[in-house]
């Protein structure tokens, strides 16, 4: 209650909008807490506590994880399981609130507010904008889970089916056709649920809040600014420092662990395509891949947002469309087109049951998958949200939610239908002889599931190569945009800090990933990153409130 009263006072103190936007009147000047040390030839411009503390914490954490990995690893793993199985209801409720808030804003008059003020014009075309938001936010997951997740729900006997649905294949035998179709639809609906409205709503809330408070309210582009309506001027002190440090922490560890795991995936793929034994086991090879990915990310950040990040994202999108188009065209095209509408229908008709937080018995699915995903998306949201915010100036809120929530959901559904649908069709046709069955059910080798599906289509070598390149480029585009975000947060919201700083973060990220890969502990750290999902979920619920208050005081 005291919290609410304070909110009232703070927001009442805000000035009424006059002119194009309602600037928040604060004495804080962007960069006022920054220090400019010189290290050798490099001049820096960094936010004092945030850069120093997050840098030290990251180094300490890596050392501790490496030194005590046998103790820390299981502990963090247990913590993750504890959080997702105890607070699954909370994650599900929070996810639903994010979707409802987004849809509510979309249909309300608040949708007319323009990011950057009434006269702002967009910096990027729809295509460039789209390419960047997909490449930063989801691309790599789509590559990894596109085949794996639908195939997993359809055929694995470990009891993780959505809403405790039936299996399509039991003990190596297809069940009767009607039940197979039901299992297929249920698998696709469950997958699209995890890649549809909910994750994008999480990103959209963070991105929209950041964009609003930076471009319309004139606060620095850093995560703490969202909470100005709640904490007021105290946001420039330690409450804000902690929020920013947490954001840096989640971003760096999220990226580093994904980079490490992705390098292992890519090397497994290379071993598969070229028939090299043992490459997937070889840490050296994975480290070489990390070096290559980091070098590409370095070139990208040195070329800047337009010349590097955007261009690479566009290349990425073209490759993804080629792969998607190929799978759809050489596969059972008309069947997939038909299935797409069926899958979307199944998703929409089951979304209420799937997102219901209580009274369900599908613990494996709800806790092991849904709650884990929600925690994972939430822990990535400061990074993806901040990047989306930066490139979204000039769009109206309605346009923004349509393009960050609705269209990506449809694209995710198309992708899952093509990749997962083709894999399930292969399993229905060849049952235990299909490669996907081999990698997902018989021997669980998730990183090869995509390559298994491609191997049964024509030109498997070419498409597998495209897939490997895509995995790597998706990592580059996550790594470069993530480095820009960390650099901005640790520079107190300045996007024109010296270039040497972003170089530092790109290299640091690669080093952390390589160190963890060599020393073990990648999964432990991933568990740690996911564990930040719970505190952040609470933080994001507060952000919903701040966002709506902020939008209401803007001219429409």
């Amino acid at each position: 209650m005291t919290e609410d009263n304070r909110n009232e006072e703070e927001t009442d103190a805000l000035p009424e909008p006059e002119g194009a936007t309602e600037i928040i009147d604060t004495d804080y000047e962007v960069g006022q807490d920054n220090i400019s040390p010189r290290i050798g030839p490099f001049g820096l411009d960094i936010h004092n506590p945030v850069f120093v503390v997050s840098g030290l914490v990251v180094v300490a954490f890596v050392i501790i994880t490496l030194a005590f990995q046998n103790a820390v690893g299981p502990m963090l793993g247990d913590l993750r399981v504890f959080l997702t199985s105890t607070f699954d209801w909370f994650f599900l409720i929070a996810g639903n609130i994010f979707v409802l808030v987004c849809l509510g804003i979309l249909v309300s008059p608040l949708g007319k507010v323009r990011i950057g003020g009434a006269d702002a014009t967009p910096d990027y075309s729809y295509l460039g904008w789209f390419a960047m938001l997909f490449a930063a936010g989801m691309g790599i997951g789509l590559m990894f889970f596109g085949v794996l997740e639908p195939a997993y729900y359809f055929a694995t006997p470990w009891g993780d089916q959505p809403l405790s649905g039936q299996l399509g294949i039991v003990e190596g035998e297809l069940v009767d056709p009607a039940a197979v179709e039901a299992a297929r639809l249920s698998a696709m609906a469950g997958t699209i649920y995890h890649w549809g409205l909910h994750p994008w709503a999480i990103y959209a809330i963070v991105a929209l809040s950041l964009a609003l408070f930076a471009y319309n309210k004139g606060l620095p582009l850093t995560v703490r600014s969202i909470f100005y309506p709640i904490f007021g001027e105290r946001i420039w002190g330690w409450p804000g420092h902690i929020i920013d440090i947490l954001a840096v922490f989640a971003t760096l560890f999220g990226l580093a662990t994904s980079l490490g795991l992705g390098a292992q995936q890519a090397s497994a793929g290379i071993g598969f395509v070229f028939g090299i034994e043992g490459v997937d086991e070889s840490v050296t090879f994975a480290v070489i891949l990390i070096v290559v990915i980091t070098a590409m990310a370095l070139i990208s950040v040195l070329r800047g947002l337009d010349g590097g990040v955007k261009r690479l994202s566009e290349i990425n999108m073209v490759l993804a469309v080629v792969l998607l188009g190929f799978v759809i065209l050489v596969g059972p095209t008309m069947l997939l087109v038909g299935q797409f509408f069926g899958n979307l229908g199944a998703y929409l008709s089951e979304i209420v049951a799937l997102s219901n937080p209580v009274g369900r018995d599908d613990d494996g699915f709800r806790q092991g998958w849904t709650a884990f995903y929600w925690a994972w998306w939430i822990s990535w949201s400061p990074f993806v949200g901040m990047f989306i915010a930066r490139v979204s100036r000039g769009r109206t809120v309605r346009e923004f939610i349509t393009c960050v929530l609705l269209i990506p959901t449809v694209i995710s559904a198309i992708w899952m239908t093509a990749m997962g649908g083709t894999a399930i069709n292969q399993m229905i046709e060849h049952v235990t002889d299909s490669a996907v069955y081999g990698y997902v059910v018989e021997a669980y080798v998730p990183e090869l599931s995509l390559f298994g599906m491609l191997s049964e289509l024509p030109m498997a070598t070419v498409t597998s190569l495209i897939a490997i390149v895509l995995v790597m480029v998706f990592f580059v585009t996550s790594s470069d945009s993530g480095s820009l975000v960390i650099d901005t947060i640790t520079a107190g919201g300045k996007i024109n800090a010296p270039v040497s700083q972003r170089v530092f973060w790109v290299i640091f990220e690669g080093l952390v990933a390589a160190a963890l890969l060599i020393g073990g502990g990648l999964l432990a750290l991933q568990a740690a990153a996911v564990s930040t999902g719970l505190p952040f979920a609470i933080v994001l619920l507060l952000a919903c409130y701040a966002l709506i208050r902020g939008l209401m005081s803007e001219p429409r």
Partner: protein
Amino acid sequence: MYRKIAVPVDLFHADQITRALDVAADLAGHYGASLHFIGVTAETPTAVAHNPAEFAQKLEAFAAEQGKRHGVAVSGTARTSTDPAVDVDKVLLRAIADCGADLVVMASHVPGISDYLWGSHGGHIAAHAEISVFVVR
């Protein structure tokens, strides 16, 4: 000899480029030229301005103040960049070409500020601009 002198300025460090501003004003007085101030800002809020519109106003005020102090004709261009840490030189060169100036006067390295600031930019502009560039050190 010169009609319009382009003067790129960093409003955040305006107090540290007075030498370049004085040189530009002297030259303008000597040749009867006008001064054209060019400023580049990020689209995100900065220490100078909350948004590009406010930045443009501040640049205009800065130009007017310079014109009054030195008694020369002034104008100004405010440009934005999505990634000024990397693109600022490119944006400046385009603005210099667009404004039709025949001379650039700009400050070079200001001691005590991080490396990326106008120091190296002066060199870059001198190397790539199509008109004469006077780098004030």
